[in-house]
């Protein structure tokens, strides 16, 4: 792939991190170059070419850079290095291993190897000599934190190949030659466990991408119950600041039923990443009993790190996700926040003096976002196995206005919408997902409906629809009460309102900081919802509207104590008993 004679150039203009380079040979759009600044080499990417001038965005601070500095073009796009040893690493947006960097402060021009080249991996071959393979085919397997990490034929290789040599089971470093393949013309290629792939290009090596059909459990009730996301699905969480986007994202990444979790901290607070660094090595994955960090990859490009690398960070995360999907694994990718990525695009577009679109964002913002979301999905691999990337991005709408360009563009691309409401956050009703405005398009898919009926319960969909109706009716009743006054409406209005409050307090609200309440398995969600709907279906006798609220407050209190107790424990049953007593007393 490398060019024989590298194109070089010299710097002729600088505005912040946009640098103009006069070049002496051919260059490609998005090609990577290094600009020399004394002893440092600054990485940059070509984003525009005008005549002999290449406009490059530098991934670092350009302080002290002078005209005349030499740029050397590399002949490839921005690439990630793929191989065993990516799990539980902390990378920056360009896949530099942050732990390998020296000193407290990030040093300009310091690029570190994403992989450990010395570590030996226990390799088990899958193919044998003579087998026909193509890009993405599994050559063998190593155990990476107990995940079956497949070593594959590099995605860049086109055509079919015959295995000429494959090493026997044993311990090898990632750079060890593990196989030799021959193409149709008889040319041999040596393969190691490492390959590279340009981040802005989707990895294609799969047979088919069907519509997602399987529920992805997150343990968050107002998602799983009301608006579920699927394996390979896409969703987004817009919300003004302070409405709990990050807490919700962290909850999902801790609890979701995925093999690999990739967290792209894109232009967000460094302390939030530190929280993951600190907590994930301590927390256990309830399904495997292993530490959460072992299945997690963190791409940290926090808000104070260079802006251009922020744009790259989401692509780096997605490409690593696609790599693990090609191994037949379930990947969950969380990006917080895609608005910061869009802002990085805006800053660059601004420096390029492009004509701006809405709110000064680039005109192609919508296309860029759609294209990115389309890389998620559930796939059948060429060998018939399945893999998926579920993508959930947060959006930070400017001024909390959901009509701004990033939210609008994302709404077109993502299938689930989890809108966080300021009003709910203000009254501390967390997670603040608005139950009425939010939606999951997957609920309309017949294949998803069928899957839910089989796995959760025959009447599940009806119950979910009913819960939504109760919430909507409750909201209407509340509006009436607010207009006409407590005693200006029939008592039944109060009952309708409080029944929706019951669902709100027991099902929707969830304490992310309580050990038990934080994560609710599907079985428990189903049990609690039918229990709540039983109450909704019962008719009660009230002589005064004040009795309605005090009765339901007691009911809610017992339910909440149930939520705080281990499922089906004595304490749980004790509160359930107390609840049943309460209901009997008030029953018609």
């Amino acid at each position, binding site marked *: 792939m490398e060019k024989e004679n590298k194109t070089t150039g010299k710097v002729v203009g600088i505005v912040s991190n946009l640098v103009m380079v006069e070049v002496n040979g051919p260059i490609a759009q998005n090609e990577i170059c290094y600009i020399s600044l004394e002893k440092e080499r600054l990485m940059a990417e070509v984003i525009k070419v005008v005549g002999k001038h290449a406009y490059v965005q530098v991934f670092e601070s350009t302080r002290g850079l002078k005209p005349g500095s030499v740029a050397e073009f590399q002949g490839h796009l921005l690439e990630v290095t793929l191989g065993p040893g990516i799990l539980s690493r902390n990378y920056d947006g360009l896949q530099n291993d942050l732990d390998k960097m020296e000193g407290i402060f*990030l040093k300009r021009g310091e690029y570190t190897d994403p992989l450990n080249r010395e570590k030996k991996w226990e390799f088990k071959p899958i193919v044998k000599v003579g087998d026909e393979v193509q890009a993405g085919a599994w050559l063998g397997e190593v155990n990476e934190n107990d995940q079956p990490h497949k070593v594959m034929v590099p995605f860049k290789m086109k055509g079919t190949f015959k295995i000429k040599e494959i090493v026997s089971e044993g311990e090898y470093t990632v750079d060890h030659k593990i196989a030799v393949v021959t193409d149709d013309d008889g040319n041999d290629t040596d393969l190691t466990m490492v390959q590279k792939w340009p981040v802005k290009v989707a990895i294609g090596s799969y047979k088919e991408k069907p519509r997602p059909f399987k529920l992805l459990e997150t343990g968050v009730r107002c998602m799983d119950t009301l608006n579920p996301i699927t394996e390979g699905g896409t969703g987004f969480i817009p919300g003004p600041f302070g409405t709990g986007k990050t807490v919700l994202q962290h909850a999902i990444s801790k609890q979701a039923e995925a093999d690999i979790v990739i967290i792209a901290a894109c232009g967000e607070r460094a302390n939030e990443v530190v929280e993951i660094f600190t907590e994930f090595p301590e927390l256990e994955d309830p399904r495997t009993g292993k530490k959460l960090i072992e299945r997690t990859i963190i791409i940290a490009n926090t808000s104070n790190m260079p*802006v251009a690398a922020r744009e790259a960070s989401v692509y780096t995360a997605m490409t690593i996700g696609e790599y693990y999907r090609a191994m037949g694994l379930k990947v969950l990718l969380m990006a917080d926040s895609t608005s910061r990525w869009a802002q990085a695009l805006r800053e660059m577009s601004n420096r390029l003096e492009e004509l701006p679109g809405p709110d000064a964002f680039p005109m192609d913002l919508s296309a860029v976002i759609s294209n990115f979301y389309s890389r998620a999905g559930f796939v059948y691999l060429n060998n018939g196995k399945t893999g998926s990337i579920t993508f959930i991005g947060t959006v930070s709408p*400017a*001024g*909390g206005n959901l009509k701004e360009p990033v939210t609008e563009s994302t709404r077109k691309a993502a299938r689930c919408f989890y809108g966080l409401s300021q009003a709910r956050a203000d009254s501390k009703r967390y997670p603040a997902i608005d139950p009425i405005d939010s939606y999951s398009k997957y609920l309309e898919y017949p294949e998803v409906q069928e899957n839910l009926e089989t796995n959760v319960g025959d009447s599940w969909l009806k119950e979910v629809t009913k819960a939504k109706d109760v919430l909507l009716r409750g909201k209407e009743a509340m509006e009436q009460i607010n207009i006409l*006054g407590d005693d200006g409406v029939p008592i039944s209005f109060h009952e309708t309102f409080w029944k929706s409050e019951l669902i709100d307090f027991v099902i929707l609200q969830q304490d992310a900081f309580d050990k038990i309440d934080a994560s609710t398995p599907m079985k428990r969600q189903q049990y609690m919802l039918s229990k709540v709907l039983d109450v909704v279906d019962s008719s009660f006798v009230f002589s005064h509207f004040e009795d309605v609220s005090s009765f339901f407050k*007691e009911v809610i209190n017992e339910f909440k104590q149930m939520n705080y107790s281990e499922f089906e424990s004595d304490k749980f049953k004790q509160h359930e008993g107390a609840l049943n007593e309460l209901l009997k007393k008030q029953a018609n």
Partner: protein
Amino acid sequence: MESQAFQKVYTKLTNITKATVTLKADGVGYDEIASVNGKLAQVVKITGDDITLQIFEGTEGIPTNAEVSFLGKPPQLTVSDELAGRFFNAYGAPIDGGPEIQGEVRDIGSPSVNPVRRKQPSNLIATGIAGIDLNNTLVSGQKIPFFADPDQPYNQVMAMVALRAKADKIILGGMGLTNDDYLYFKNVFDNAGALDRIISFVNTTENPPVERLLVPDMALTAAEYFAVDKNESVLVLLTDMTLYADALSIVSNRMDQIPSKDSMPGSLYSDLAKIYEKAVQFPSGGSITIIAVTTLSGGDITHAIPDNTGYITEGQLFLRRDSDIGKVIVDPFRSLSRLKQLVIGKQTREDHPQVMNSAIRLYADAANARTKLENGFDLTDYDERTLKFAREYSDSILAIDVNVGTDTMLDITWDLFSKHFKKAEVAIRESLVEKYWKS
């Protein structure tokens, strides 16, 4: 500062705008500072041999034949222990009549801390103000602004927090501070006998606005010296960040950049993040905590400045005058400290999180009751009780003149719960109610 043997002097400006000048020069580095007829300037754009300089003081009176010399370095600050107790201008030069600082010269606007080298903030900062300690607990290494209307006593509250916070060093970065406020800070710190641990970088309303752009970086360079080299806990006070952002928009406007929302530069988020993200807890014990002020226009938090700030900082504090009790309170609804979860119920009593949430929920019920009352509806017995609770809660907890320990704050709240409500109405985990309910 080493002097250079030979400094080329340019005397031909090709362009002058209100904030920038352009000239032809070679061998100039990006971000480098220069002197234009004795005025400090910084390189903001290089196109071929055309160099554009931003003049901090403004370009008034600069002639086309002004003497320009490039200093071959970015803006710098001399750091040493001698900084303590001193007052400086935006360029880091003393304004208190004292001697120049002797020490190490450092570039301002240094690189970011590697996120994996940070430690999770975990030390509670007690202020005695219950509206903060109980509902919006601060943690060292946090960054949090006051979102305030210009007429609110934010500088007073900030000075109070600073003095009670027991930091090793307090660094004041004043941007567009009125002379009166500057003297207020000076007096308060002096009277508290704290002057020797205070360092101030001040740009007052009398100074040119673009100079303000240097203040946060100066303050934070000094903060990093004490936090990294001396392992001290440093509290940085930045007031007023809205005026800082205004200065950013002036410069970007002069450079013909396309404005985004509210005429602010498209890079506002990154510009503010670079400052606020300097807040950090180091594993070695040193820390930088930033408390800032962002003034609002007409209480509008959707404006680009407070909006971007809110997405960067770890919460925000709102002050509000409560007409029922005639005092300024910390608004419990709109205020938030994101890092409080790291300390409440851990460094404070176990009942803290639930007591805090229940009290705020009941306070919200009182707000609903008040709306009902205003709309002319009858109040229920529960409404009446929430209103009584709200008044007492406001007076004994939320008011900024409260100064008690956290346990006392919790006890006061339990007292109010038992006085006005039934156990089920409070809806707190049963084991806690059994232990703390005042019967």
